[in-house]
């Protein structure tokens, strides 16, 4: 059968479609974005009427998916690792409600922080919620797990975490597709109060979840995704989680001399690990992300068998793994190529030529020359690149929506005026509630919403804020006299500078909305128009 060339993300989307999904829910976030994008481009998804519109943020996505699960239909929610923090309240409680239709939560981790502010490991969330975690080692497994994950979820009455990392999400390989399952029909929960987490019901549900743990553990022990592969050299036994299995095998051309436990379903398969411990003199744990498995194997006293991994320095404590790092841990000598010549300079990402954020920062920087520096709280998006030269314009980037509320807090402390810079999509994701707070306090801050009509950094997805920003601000109670708009173009520089200066001088809350379409989406729609001619 002809294999199809899929990104890991695309394999997950097609797996979910073939597994009978009725709704994809997500907010864009690298490296998870392409799952939803694949669904949106799929003719099959359109024909089957599968929901695939972007959500406003990860929490709303998670809740909508729980709602679909409640009806008895299968749903998937996809997000980058830090999105799990936004969705955490809904996610953790969905383990207590349990599911009706199968529910898969895809958490795309970003070890090495290619496009993120941390490298948190979502396996801890799965463990925290007491639910099974699937971690594919390749694109084919990603497809299978997305397809079969719904049944695992339904069988154990819990959401299932499908944990991937950037490397798998954004790497292509051939995938063979299997049969297709039909979508389920609406069939509400037998117990009408299953999803009502009043303490009395929650206590009962929680006990059920705890009782289910034995079966969830047994499923890991029996899982075909977990394997014990024997080897002759018992000096080391290797535990290889997710894609680290590939880096191990790469070094031995598929013939590893050491016994290996391949882990792709959690909780950790006790049977295989016990056997490895009995057979081998020491254990090497390979895992992308935090030492999640390694810590569990060591325990508090760490007095048993010698364990090597990220905690004892056999592997680096941070960053993603690769074949060279694994080779080093196994004392395999690799002859590298020549060093990078000194003439090669760093080339960090930068704002596009012609981008409106550039004009925003050009004006803001001059307007702020009258004040002491260090008062600009920014947010997450392309405009975070304003931190780099030549702009050096911002002083913070913490989490989605933090710009406005950090400015409120700084102003409370007396740093006046404080400035918040936030994009349109980030504003509707998590900025609106913060702005309401600023309205109520009439905080002496300037909120600069750099509105480019799209979710730019992740590739130009629809923004929930499109054509709504000014109305939202009015609705939240921003004083119309201090709710200004401008067009960030060089030719309007003087005028824009004057507006920003005036609002900086105002001793209350002002909002300035800079409105100009993202240069990338402009180029894309021009190309499309050219083609249609």
């Amino acid at each position, binding site marked *: 059968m002809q*294999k199809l*060339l899929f*990104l890991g993300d695309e394999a997950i989307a097609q797996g979910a479609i073939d597994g009978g999904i009725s709704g994809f829910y997500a907010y864009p976030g*690298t*490296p998870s*974005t*392409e799952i939803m994008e694949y669904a949106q481009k799929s003719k099959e998804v359109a024909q089957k009427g599968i929901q695939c519109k972007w959500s406003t943020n990860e929490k709303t996505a998670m809740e909508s998916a729980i709602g679909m699960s409640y009806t008895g239909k299968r749903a998937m929610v996809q997000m980058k690792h830090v999105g799990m923090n936004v969705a955490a309240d809904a996610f953790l409680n969905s383990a207590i409600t349990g599911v009706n239709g199968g529910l898969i939560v895809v958490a795309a981790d970003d070890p090495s922080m*290619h*496009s993120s502010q941390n490298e948190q490991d979502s396996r801890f969330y799965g463990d925290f919620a007491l639910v099974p975690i699937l971690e594919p080692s390749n694109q084919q497994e990603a497809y299978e797990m997305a397809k079969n994950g719904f049944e695992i979820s339904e069988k154990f009455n819990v959401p299932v975490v499908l944990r991937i990392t950037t*490397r*798998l999400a*954004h*790497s*292509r*390989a*051939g995938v063979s597709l299997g049969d297709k399952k039909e979508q389920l029909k609406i069939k509400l929960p037998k117990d009408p109060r299953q999803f009502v987490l009043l303490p009395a019901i929650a206590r009962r549900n929680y006990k059920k979840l705890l009782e289910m743990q034995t079966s969830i553990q047994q499923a890991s022990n029996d899982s075909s995704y977990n394997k014990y592969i024997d080897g002759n050299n018992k000096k080391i036994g290797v535990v290889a989680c997710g*894609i680290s*299995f*590939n*880096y191990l*095998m*790469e*070094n031995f051309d*598929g013939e590893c001399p050491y016994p290996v436990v391949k882990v792709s379903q959690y909780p950790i398969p006790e049977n295989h690990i016990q056997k490895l411990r009995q057979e081998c003199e020491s254990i090497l744990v390979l895992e992308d992300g935090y030492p999640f498995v390694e810590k569990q194997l060591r325990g508090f006293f760490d007095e048993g068998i010698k364990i090597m991994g990220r905690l004892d320095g056999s592997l680096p404590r941070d960053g993603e793994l*690769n*074949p*060279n790092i694994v*080779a080093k841990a196994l004392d395999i000598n*690799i*002859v*590298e*190529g*020549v*060093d*990078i*010549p000194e*003439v*090669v*300079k*760093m*080339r*960090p*990402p*930068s*704002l*596009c030529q012609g981008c409106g954020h550039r004009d925003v920062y050009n004006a803001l920087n001059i307007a702020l020359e009258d004040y002491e520096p260090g008062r600009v709280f920014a947010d997450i998006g*392309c405009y975070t*690149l304003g931190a780099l*030269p*030549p702009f050096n314009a911002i002083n913070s980037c913490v989490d989605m929506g933090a710009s406005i509320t950090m400015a409120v807090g700084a102003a409370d402390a007396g740093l006046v005026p404080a400035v918040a810079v936030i994009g349109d999509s980030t504003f509707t994701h998590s900025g609106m509630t913060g702005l309401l707070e600023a309205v109520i306090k009439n905080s002496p801050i300037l909120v600069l919403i750099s509105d480019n009509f799209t979710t730019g*950094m*992740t*590739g130009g997805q629809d923004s929930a804020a499109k054509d709504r920003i000014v109305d939202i601000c009015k609705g939240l109670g921003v004083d119309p006299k201090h709710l200004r708009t401008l067009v960030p173009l060089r030719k309007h520089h003087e005028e824009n500078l004057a507006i920003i200066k005036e609002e900086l001088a105002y001793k209350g809350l002002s909002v300035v909305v800079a409105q100009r379409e993202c240069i990338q989406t402009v180029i894309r729609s021009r190309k499309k128009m050219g083609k249609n001619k």
Partner: protein
Amino acid sequence: MKKDIILAGVGGQGILTIAAIIGSSAINKNLYLKQAEVHGMSQRGGDVQSNLRISDKPIYSDLITKGHADMIISVEPMESLRYLPFLKKDGYLITNTVPFKNIPNYPEDEEIYAAIDKLPNKIALDAEQIAKDLGNVRSSNVVVLGAATPFLGFAIEELEGGIKSLFGKKGDELVEMNIKALHAGYEFAKEKIK
């Protein structure tokens, strides 16, 4: 047959088009393939690379081991040098010579050309000029692919097939343009390695 290829460039320069043409050609030949790409923040004018691995046997790692790449194909000269630790001792470096200068401390062109010149196996060509002469500067990345053709383990007709699979839907004109670009790069490289 096994080829480990590093594709290099700056976000937006179109290295993924090169990867997709080689990828389609490999799939048409029923070879195994893995291709790791960079999406997200670095695509905004930062350095980007793609690890492309092709083999007639199953491939494990999505990433190429340092010292194991058969070639580096780059659409930008400074970027071609960034991945030298990955290149085999006898590996080939194929690069466009036209710099993309979006950083203030971009080195002198001559310094970069000197570093490329030190390597034992290299093909350096002004792919933009060649593409311009053919009438479409935007196919310069395919000119670079053409220059890599002698080392790829594919017949040029197989890569033409890859171009047809990839651009077929977008019209014959684009297919023809890219095939011309492929041949121009190929001829340049053949002349160099004579």
